[in-house]
């Protein structure tokens, strides 16, 4: 008769049983593998913060070949889209329709003179009214029409190149450009402004370099000053799927691991099977490890699935190390499974376990930086986010996927996740052992 049963045998028996049960439960499988798919698609398509092809009107008061060149150059990277007389140059009308109808019903006039970009010192004189820049009604688009396009939502940005613009630029004098942006959508306003500022920063940089090359020696600070222009890196279009997917992945893992683990154990308690297991000589730690392992695998599968969908459907880049991704996912899983286990030790029924999982998941998601940037939270709440494993995982995912950040950049987050994971699992196992039935 087996006196001290082999732990390996016990462990394998638990893993096998747990896997079989999950595999036989069709609803569970759908939830574990189909859920992620659905969530990703919903979040990817419905929550769209991406800014591109901002409808833009150009008032070319200069009417020179250089000014037309600049107008085209401004549209070149696709962030801005030139609309002429309310019609777009390319065929992408559907997005335009959505945008313009959403901004058209804003009550106050949505014309906000928010950016005054110049090729010399940007914003030195501040924004100027449209008619002070020597732009008359002459040319292909009169100022009044641009104004109207902004008000009725046909355009979200207007770029005014005043008369004499190319001449001033060529002489090395300060040339003025006015950019008027519809500020009802701050995201879009920021991106459009940055696109214009970025373009002219490049132009003035080129000009300066050309001039320096001509004159051979002159310190760069003397004139035609280059000023710093803020630019959004890595995700300049505020592309939302690449930004959202890491957040959605972290949320998914909570649902498939925390809630499912908590409910799974609560179900065993409810059905009485836990008592039947606890009367065997199996150790609680062996039992729990065996029960959790299949969910570690499922967690990894879900993350891989999310990455694949992200990459193929939403152009999510994977710039960083995959080993780092896997390591981060593993230590994150320790936390989410540990929390699930902890919840199961304080709930008597599956319902309570579900509620407990939900009560953990909601604040964890809200305080993770997935939905709102942590920096925009009140200070005390920012402090709370340091206790949230989700925060670290989202940080790692975003930095790894979008920026290609490596081990040396992210080791603090990994250590934090490891500490949380091991700590929570330990406490949960202790509690489980104590109130076994």
């Amino acid at each position, binding site marked *: 008769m*087996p006196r001290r049963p082999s732990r390996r045998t016990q462990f394998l028996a638990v893993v096998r049983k747990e896997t079989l*049960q999950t595999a036989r439960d069709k609803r569970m499988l759908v939830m574990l593998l189909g859920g992620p798919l659905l969530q990703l698609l919903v979040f990817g398509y419905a929550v769209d913060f991406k800014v591109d092809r901002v409808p833009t009107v150009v008032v070319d008061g200069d009417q020179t070949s250089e000014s037309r060149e600049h107008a085209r150059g401004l549209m070149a990277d696709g962030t801005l889209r030139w609309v002429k007389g309310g019609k777009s140059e390319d065929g992408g009308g559907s997005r335009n329709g959505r945008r313009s109808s959403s901004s058209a019903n804003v009550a106050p006039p949505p014309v906000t003179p928010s950016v005054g970009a110049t090729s010399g010192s940007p914003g030195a004189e501040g924004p100027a009214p449209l008619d002070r820049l020597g732009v008359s009604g002459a040319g292909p688009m009169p100022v009044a029409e641009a104004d109207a396009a902004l008000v009725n939502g046909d355009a979200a940005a207007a770029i005014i190149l005043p008369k004499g613009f190319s001449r001033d630029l060529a002489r090395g004098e300060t040339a003025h450009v006015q950019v008027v942006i519809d500020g009802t959508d701050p995201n879009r306003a920021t991106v459009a402004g940055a696109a214009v500022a970025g373009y002219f920063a490049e132009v003035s940089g080129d000009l300066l370099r050309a001039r320096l090359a001509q004159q051979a020696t002159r310190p760069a600070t003397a004139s035609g000053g280059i000023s710093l222009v803020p630019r959004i890196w890595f995700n300049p279009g505020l592309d939302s799927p690449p930004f959202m997917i890491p957040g959605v992945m972290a949320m998914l893992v909570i649902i498939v691991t925390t809630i499912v683990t908590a409910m799974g154990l609560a179900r065993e308690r409810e059905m009485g099977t836990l008592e039947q297991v606890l009367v065997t*000589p199996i150790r609680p730690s062996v039992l729990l490890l065996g029960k959790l392992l299949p969910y570690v695998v499922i967690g990894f599968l879900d993350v891989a699935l999310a990455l694949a969908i992200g990459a193929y459907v939403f152009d999510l880049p994977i710039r960083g190390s995959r080993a780092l991704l896997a390591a981060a996912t593993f230590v994150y899983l320790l936390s989410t499974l540990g929390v699930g286990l902890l919840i199961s030790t304080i709930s008597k029924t599956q319902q309570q376990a579900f509620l407990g999982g939900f009560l953990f998941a909601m604040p964890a998601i809200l305080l993770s930086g997935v939905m709102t940037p942590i920096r925009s939270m009140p200070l005390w709440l920012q402090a709370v986010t340091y206790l949230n494993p989700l925060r670290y995982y989202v940080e790692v995912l975003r930095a790894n996927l979008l920026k290609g950040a490596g081990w040396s950049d992210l080791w603090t987050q990994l250590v934090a996740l490891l500490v949380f994971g091991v700590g929570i699992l330990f406490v949960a196992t202790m509690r489980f052992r104590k109130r076994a039935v």
Partner: protein
Amino acid sequence: MSAPAIVARHLKKRFGTFVAVDDVSFEVERGEIFGYLGANGAGKSTTIRILCGLLEPTSGTATVAGHSVAEDPEAVKASIGYMSQKFSLYLDLPVAENLAFFGGAYGLSGRALRRRTEEVLELSGLAEVRDAQTGSLPGGIRQRLALGCAVLHQPEIVFLDEPTAGVDPTARRIFWKLIRELSRGGTTVFVTTHYLDEAEYCARIGLMVDGRLVALDTPAQLKRTHVPDRMFAVRGPNAARASGPLRQVAGVRNVEPFGAGLHVRAEPGRCEAQTLRAAAGAAGHQVEVEPIDPTLEDVFLAVVGRSAKKEEDGA
């Protein structure tokens, strides 16, 4: 190896202010079938759960299979099998997978596991349903599977908590055949039941009333001690009508309808079958009268009645 299989000493379990098990002490010999009887809520399951290491007693000690339950619960668990009152195998798994899981939990693997699985399937007559989903099986077969899972690892002792509750009479009979086979093989069986006819199969019986163990002995001795009266069965076409005249017979304590006839209880030595038959005949009822043994039900009623009275007197 002659030490008792189970030794319980002054076990007490309190839930809040309610005492579910109150100063219970007993020993169970190796290889015997020990019946644990009591009404609902008497504390049977609580006692078993303490002995299996599932519940810590408030006070008192227990030794099972030679191991202290408090100090070496793992050794105790490796030596026992347990079938809980509520069916608690995995309903969503096939029969064979339940056996495989519990076998593994008890440390069986490879050839040993396969051999025992076959033996248990054979023994409990489950070979045909090995691939059936457990939840689809009728109650009687499920109970046999639960017993199979509890004895896979050939434990020294099995604890069966109301294994035949809600099972039809045929299935109950099959089940008890299995229990007796186990016992013949040397396994100690600790079984609780509500069915007093089943209790007759037990070598010894402990009777629980409100958390206290009020009687413990062999069925025969229990009957002698607790039902000293002689019992007679009265049968015949008009037996029921003879109840009035029979009550008048000297020494008769009680006459109760039983089926189509009557059961008569009388003081020992004061009346015989003939006396009763004559008395019924004198009243014009032709009946058969036969001395019978009291049943455990009689014992149970006598004991419970006595402790209820004691309680009233005490209050």
